[in-house]
């Protein structure tokens, strides 16, 4: 009996033998029960072996998927490449920044440099002084108006530039009504930041250069009644548009101040 069962499940029976065997199973309940018991055990043996082989494949196959990435070796290689590029980026940026710093050594009022990295710079002290001198002399034609960088290599910044309509002929306007003034322009004014010993500016309606004023400070420029005013900190500063380097001086004219948006 057991041998017949074995021959059946291992496919050793011919079609004729199979048919006879199955007919016998139908006729003999005890045989059928024994065969069912046998087949269940065989199924368990096969399932165990299948699981064992599957486990072996899973543990040893080098193809795994992590999301959409297929190959473990490719994951490692990709991670290594990304790490190398990131490292190179960090290193280049670090040395790039240091190199820019070399061009922007600050001098205090005594003329001594105050940058601790001065020993590393290759630009001579007098070269830095020449750059400053050129700017103070208003040698604006040296600067490329189309340039996106200032003469020391720092990028240009922009500030909002508002053109305010005069609503009445009278300048004396209630400050609360200033907020209702229609701002007709939100042009952007290119602004360049330069180092300096004192707070100065150069303005010619199309560009503004600020000396010693921190680039990160919030500022705006308003044009009111054909005059331009820089809003910086808690003050307004008149900007004369002759392009000459001038000291920034906070305006104290209350009439003008009332005409401008309140400083926040």
């Amino acid at each position: 009996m057991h041998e017949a069962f074995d021959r059946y499940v291992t496919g050793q029976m011919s079609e004729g033998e199979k048919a006879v065997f199955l007919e016998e199973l139908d006729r003999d309940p005890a045989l059928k029960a024994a065969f069912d018991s046998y087949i269940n055990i065989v199924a368990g043996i096969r399932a165990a072996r299948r699981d064992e082989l599957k486990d072996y494949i899973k543990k040893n196959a080098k193809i795994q998927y992590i999301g959409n990435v297929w190959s473990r070796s490719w994951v490692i290689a990709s991670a290594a490449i990304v790490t190398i590029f990131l490292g190179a980026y960090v290193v280049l940026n670090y040395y790039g920044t240091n190199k820019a710093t070399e061009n922007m050594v600050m001098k205090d009022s005594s003329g001594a440099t105050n940058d601790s990295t001065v020993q590393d710079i290759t630009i001579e002290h007098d070269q830095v002084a020449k750059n400053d001198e050129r700017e103070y002399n208003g040698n604006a034609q040296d600067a490329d108006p189309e340039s996106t960088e200032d003469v020391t290599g720092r990028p240009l910044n922009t500030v909002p530039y508002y053109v305010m309509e005069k609503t009445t002929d009278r300048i004396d306007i209630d400050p609360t009504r200033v907020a209702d003034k229609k701002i007709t322009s939100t042009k952007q004014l290119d602004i360049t930041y330069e180092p300096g010993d004192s707070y100065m500016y150069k303005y010619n309606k199309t560009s503004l250069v600020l000396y010693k004023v921190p680039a990160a400070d919030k500022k705006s420029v308003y044009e009111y009644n054909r005059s331009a005013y820089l809003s910086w900190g808690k003050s307004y500063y008149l900007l004369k548009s002759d392009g000459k380097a001038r000291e920034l001086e906070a305006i104290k004219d209350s009439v003008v101040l009332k005409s401008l948006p309140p400083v926040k």
Partner: protein
Amino acid sequence: MFGRKKFSDEEIVDEIRGGNQEALVFLYQNNFSPVRNYILKNNGTLEDVDDVLQEAVIAVWQNASQRSFTLTSKLNTYVYAIAKNLWLKQLNKGKRLDPLDEIHSNTHAADEPRNHKMDLDIVAEYLEKLGDTCREVLQLFYFDGLDMNAIAERLNFSNADTAKSKKYQCFKRLEQLLKQDFSRSDFNI
């Protein structure tokens, strides 16, 4: 043994007949891409790719283990064809592959009755209790499809009759253990 070296189909079949399970891994890795592409294009998932390809290479393992097996195409083509059939079968049935579903071949009966109630895991657990020799004999015969001569050679039995006798003893022992711990209704007797 396999590493990255290329092997001929005959060499792989020889390794399978020698019981080298690295051949499974080799076939799996070599056929992953085409099977993956097919299944994903045909409503499958990444998980399906794993399941189907594992079943396909195991099917090749079962078939190639037998001495009567003759390869009539490239082995990779064979694996791919089995994987495709398995996937289509699964799609038609609308369910995941059942361990009791036998892959139709010229060596295994595909129309076995399935009146079982016995938990397959329980059988596997008791199979372990028999020890390595009994477990291997039973698995090599009922799953890998080796004949008694091949089993005798693989497990160092003196001859095929000894292997056959051992196989019978192991099966009866397993049956007995299961009967002791489970009711007749569990065992369908």
